């Protein structure tokens, strides 16, 4: 694997399978009375969150702690509006503290890429979701979850449904599932598909009912009701119309083959893109996705850090305490 994990597209097929296999081993740990490995003892992992995401932050925090790393949670106010500390200054601070890995969530697409390539920090950078770009560990945990139920994903068919335009989960899943040899169909109203989608290695449909009988898994994306507001671009006429055409309810779920799974990256808008009874149905693996997130992130941190030399804090910042 590369030094960083910025995009699901950075992973070769072998890399991706190595993460998934490693995650399988990590997951078996959670069945033991002592859930901790000493692997990353003495290493520092910083969770740098410029955008609130309690679930992702906790998932990374638990993952790092189970590997015995020291974890620092850094919630930064860094939007251009709030004029908080800049990305650069924050990164320089973390570098001075000797961070071995920086897990970064940012509202701006490409912010982790900037961190990784700007000499502001020398540690590994893990993208924990950047703007409307990518969320590679989410795609890995989704693949991990599907693989546990469906076996190898080569030749499997996955539908990703909803606001593809604004979804980092959709981008990372399209790339990773493609790498793993799965077939991906994006289902969305035309207004919520990016221009240039023809160039992606996916199929596209506007008709959810036609797609559902053909898939092994359906992944529902979170859709913000505000997308229909004027300031957000009026992407669809109303929340009700969206639900009718693209929401997953019991009737639609019955169109799925018996073995097919229902996934959602969370947090769900129950009643919008998914109804409560579908979310809680037997074929829904939404809660399992959360627990698999820890194992997958353990695997990522382990593979990025266990081979790399520890980051040295530069001498000149070692002043008196």
């Amino acid at each position, binding site marked *: 694997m590369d030094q960083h994990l910025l995009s699901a597209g950075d992973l070769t097929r072998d890399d991706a399978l190595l993460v998934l296999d490693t995650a399988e081993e990590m997951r078996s740990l959670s069945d033991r009375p002592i859930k901790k490995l000493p692997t990353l003892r003495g290493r520092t992992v910083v969770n740098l969150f410029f955008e609130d995401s309690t679930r992702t932050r906790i998932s990374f925090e638990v993952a790092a702690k189970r590997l015995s790393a020291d974890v620092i949670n850094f919630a930064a106010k860094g*939007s*251009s509006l709030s004029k908080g500390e*800049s*990305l*650069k200054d924050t990164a320089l601070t973390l570098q001075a503290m000797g961070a071995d890995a920086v897990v970064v969530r*940012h*509202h*701006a*697409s*490409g*912010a982790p*890429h*900037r961190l990784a*390539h*700007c000499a502001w920090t020398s540690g590994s950078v893990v993208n924990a979701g*950047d*703007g*409307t*770009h*990518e969320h590679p560990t989410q795609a890995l945990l989704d693949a991990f979850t599907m693989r546990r139920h469906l076996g190898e994903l080569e030749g499997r068919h996955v539908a990703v449904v909803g606001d593809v*335009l604004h979804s*980092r989960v959709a*981008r990372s899943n399209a790339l990773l599932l493609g790498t793993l040899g799965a077939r991906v169909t994006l289902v969305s109203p035309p207004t919520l598909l*990016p*221009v*240039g*989608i*023809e*160039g*992606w290695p996916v199929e596209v449909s506007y008709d959810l009912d036609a797609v559902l009988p053909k898939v092994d898994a359906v992944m529902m994306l979170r859709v913000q009701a505000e997308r229909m507001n004027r300031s957000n*671009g009026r992407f669809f006429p109303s929340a009700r119309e969206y639900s009718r055409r693209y929401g997953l309810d019991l009737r639609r779920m019955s169109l799925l083959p018996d073995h097919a799974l229902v996934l959602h990256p969370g947090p769900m808008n129950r009643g919008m893109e998914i109804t409560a009874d579908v979310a809680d149905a037997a074929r829904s693996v939404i809660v399992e996705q959360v627990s698999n997130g820890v194992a997958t992130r353990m695997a990522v941190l382990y593979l990025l850090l266990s081979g790399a030399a520890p980051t040295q804090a530069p001498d000149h910042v070692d002043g008196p305490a």
Partner: protein
Amino acid sequence: MSDYLIRGARLVGTDPTDLLLRDGVVHAVGEDADAPGAREVDAHGLVALPGLVDLHTHLREPGREDAETVESGTAAAARGGYAAVHAMANTDPVADTAGVVEQVWRLGREAAHCEVRPVGAVTVGLRGERLAELGAMAESAAGVRVFSDDGVCVSDAVLMRRALEYVKAFDGVVAQHAQEPRLTEGAQMNEGELSGVLGLQGWPAVAEESIIARDCLLAAHVGSRLHVCHVSTAGSVEIVRWAKSKGWEVTAEVTPHHLLLRDDLASTYDPIYKVNPPLRGADDVRALREGLADGTIDAVATDHAPHPMEDKDCEWAAAAFGMLGLETALSVVQETMVDTGLLDWAAVADRMSARPAVIGRVHAHGRPLAVGEPAHLVLYDPSATGEVRPGESASLSRNTPYAGRTLPGRVVATFLRGRPTVLDGQLT
């Protein structure tokens, strides 16, 4: 004032000859050019062009003197071979009154690196609500002829119509920043396959082209002059070509960066490549070059846009739009247009000096290098090559997209009214 005898320069690329500059004009050309006591400049191997005229420069003063001043910006202009620049109106305060344009004009005279022609804002505060006092700016000492809300589009159709009509009274021109605002809210880069992959909000070509089409029709309807700033798409070139074929008074400019750079640079997420309008695709770059070659696009204009380091040393979405351009413009035009065989040096003189001077009504600029004409000229070595080093710029800012890139050519000397502003590549 001392005389300058320029030896062996290739006038707009023709055979080597001599030029005698005296009393601010070209006093003699060829064998007549001889004067005892004149300071000689060896220009063998150099191309002499009329001093360049930029229709689109951001000098940032007043208001953002941390990014650029009239002094530093015009110094950069002289180093790029410019004898005149148009200072855009989006300063703080906005250049929307006679007082502000006269201040900028006066600062330009004091700096004396090149002539500064202030651009007046079309609307008060660039807010697009009501016309600024265009007549007062036209009649001021600055003698404003170009009006633009650049940075913002005059999107209101009625206001644009009124502006086009109104400036006819003093032979003015409205220079439009063509950007449909609703189609570009939050836009970050060219809308295409790459913007979708990178998750950066798209700036679609149609947002530029729809405004240009509307403005061409408006200019024709009211019989006025329209100038289109920084065209960036193949479709824009087509629309301007169509308007010109109708005989309408529509002119257009292209920036050096849109002639050279493509949108794929955004995949670095390095905001040094963030600019408005955004870098476009390969087909657009080709169409822009062809449009400049066939004269559909009248002028190269730099859109020199200095920004302090902190506005570029950040994530893409938080960064400012814009890049430096004055010192590298001629080199980029050589690489994209001359070395490719699309333009000869006479045509470069036309697109970078003569036509922009006519569009801006900059008298005594953009004239041929002939006896009796004003002695504004640039001596340029097209055989030189050099790496762009941001630290060597005369600008106060460092946001050049060409850092580390090797570009052809070098400005050796620039003359303004017979006096060198740059000699041996250095400011005098």
